[in-house]
């Protein structure tokens, strides 16, 4: 029991090796380079940096929406960045949950439909989703009645909590979160953060939390300044 727990603790959730990503749309050779960055399973890390420092690019790379120009990313000790895009999409649906700043939900669909859609892409049976979703909403201190309401009719704070429920419905090993509280007021923000950390602890989900708001650092055991990961890009030939 202890040894298996240890094993999980020891195995890596994220392993970024020599990744160089060049922004495709710029004329100049601008990009980010990460020599090495690893994160163990179940760790929760606060990733901060000024805007434009490459936080979002890193998240896009981790989620597989962007592919690195060079280098490789392993997730859950499997090759990820070199997969075909269809396999990446599948992997993301099953193993990665994402919450962003705002507009996490499809506003014309009901909350339940939004969550079911995530389960659908993750390949989970539709039948149990409703029960699981209402349990999860209860943990997130939301009334399960909101399931039937259109997502667009909820307050921003409620929407962000539904976004967590949706991101966790397939029990992903990794949760990527990008400035989720920037649209919330102070009280809602604190409540949101507490719930997020608690639910990640409960499910031992690896959490990568990106923000420029240093105040949020207090909710995490570990924090990483993004510029410390990056090496300046000097010569670039493509």
């Amino acid at each position, binding site marked *: 029991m202890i040894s298996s727990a240890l094993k999980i603790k020891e195995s890596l959730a994220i392993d970024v090796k020599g990744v160089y990503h060049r922004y495709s749309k710029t004329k100049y050779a601008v990009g980010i380079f990460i020599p090495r960055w690893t994160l163990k399973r179940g760790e929760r890390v606060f990733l901060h940096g000024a805007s434009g420092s490459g936080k979002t690019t890193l998240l896009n790379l981790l989620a597989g*929406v962007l592919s690195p120009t060079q280098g490789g990313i392993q997730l859950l000790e499997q090759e990820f960045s070199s997969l075909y*895009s*269809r396999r990446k999409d599948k992997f*993301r649906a*099953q193993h990665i949950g994402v919450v962003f700043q705002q*507009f996490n939900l499809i506003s014309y669909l009901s909350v339940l439909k939004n969550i079911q*859609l995530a389960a659908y892409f993750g390949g989970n049976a539709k039948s149990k989703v409703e029960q699981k979703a209402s349990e999860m909403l209860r943990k997130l201190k939301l009334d399960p009645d909101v399931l039937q309401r259109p997502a667009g009719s909820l307050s921003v704070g409620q929407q962000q909590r539904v976004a967590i429920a949706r991101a966790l419905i397939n029990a992903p090993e990794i949760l990527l979160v990008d400035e989720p509280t920037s649209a919330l007021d102070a009280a809602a923000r604190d409540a949101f953060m507490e719930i997020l950390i608690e639910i990640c602890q409960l499910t031992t989900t690896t959490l990568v939390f990106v923000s420029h708001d240093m105040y949020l650092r207090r909710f995490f055991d570990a924090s990483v300044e993004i510029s410390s990961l990056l090496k300046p890009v000097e010569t670039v030939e493509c």
Partner: protein
Amino acid sequence: MLVSVAWSSLRSRRKSVILTFFSLLISISVLLSVEHIRQNAKESFNRTISAVDIIVGAPSGQLNLLLYSVFRMGNPTNNIAYESFETLSKNQHVAWTIPILLGDSHRGSRVMGTNENYFAHFKYANKQALEFAAGVPFSKLFQAVIGADVAKQLKYQVGDEIVIAHGIGNVSFAKHDNTPFVISGILKATGTPVDKTIHVSLNAIEAIHLSPSQQKKLLSDPTSVNLTPESMTAVMLGLKSLMATFKLQREINNYQKDQLMAILPGVAMTELWQMMATVENLLLVISILVLISSLFGLSTMLLASMQQRKNEIAVLRVLGASPSVIFALVLIEALLLIVLVIVAAIGLISLTLTLSSDWLASEYGLFLSGNLLSIDSLKVVAVIVVTSIITSLLPAIEAYKNALNVGLSSRC
């Protein structure tokens, strides 16, 4: 799942979707009904007459003669002499003759004077003879045989009495009230102008046009008055051998004692169709253009929604939807809309046809079936679906590109 998402997406953009729906509904209804009328009109016209080799009437044009003698449309320009009819009947090449005497009406239905040959030799559609649904052909002077539609509309039964008016209007001042007719038979429906016709004997037509004093005399003594008509509207001929057709036609056209014109129904029908074909093709081209323009409308609506969809696409991507799923979603939306429109259009046309079939039949001699689901219509539907998929490709490709480029943090 994807279909229900597409459906919700359509519902969330109700206003523009409904406008597009109506624009498509109009154009698809026009296209489908033009196509339907085209096929049906041809069939309906072609089934009107069969096995008649020559029609003889007063000289006018062959279309005119065809229209008034067969379709009961328009008025005869002139009549032919009764003697000519007798001469034609005695001709060595002629197997049978059907005299036609038009000019009276009963509550909007044409009354046609003829003789027993009509029931024996007149054929429609694929050489089908007339059949009786009830009763028998007329045998007495004031008896009539009515078509199926007349019986249905006016709720007549065998044994009912009807009064015939002079002229062909619905309401006539000169009603021949002294001489009511008794219905002796009702014909089975044929889907041709026969259904709208009241058939009486030649002598009966003559009798209702007698002066009141002579009518009184006739009623007291049926043999006292000569009821042989002086003239005839047209005569249909059946020949013993088709080899004689052109020879006889020439002979009739050159007949010295009377002004006659002989036409071949098949030839006249073809001419009629050639005339119609131009109009038909024009209508078809116009309706295709209208359809294309509303398909562009569909494409525009979907493209315009792309801006607001960027965020939606980002969400779907994050959930693990591949760009091809997003491509498919846009296509499904377009297809859902098109299928709804096609169903509505078919419903609309069927309803319109059912409601207007009587009017079309009496006014234009068109017998259209209310059943739209012929193979040809299905082909048209297939073409519509394929073209709408093609026009929806543009917004779908746009969505696909969006899906490829979209990052995680969509800050709208």
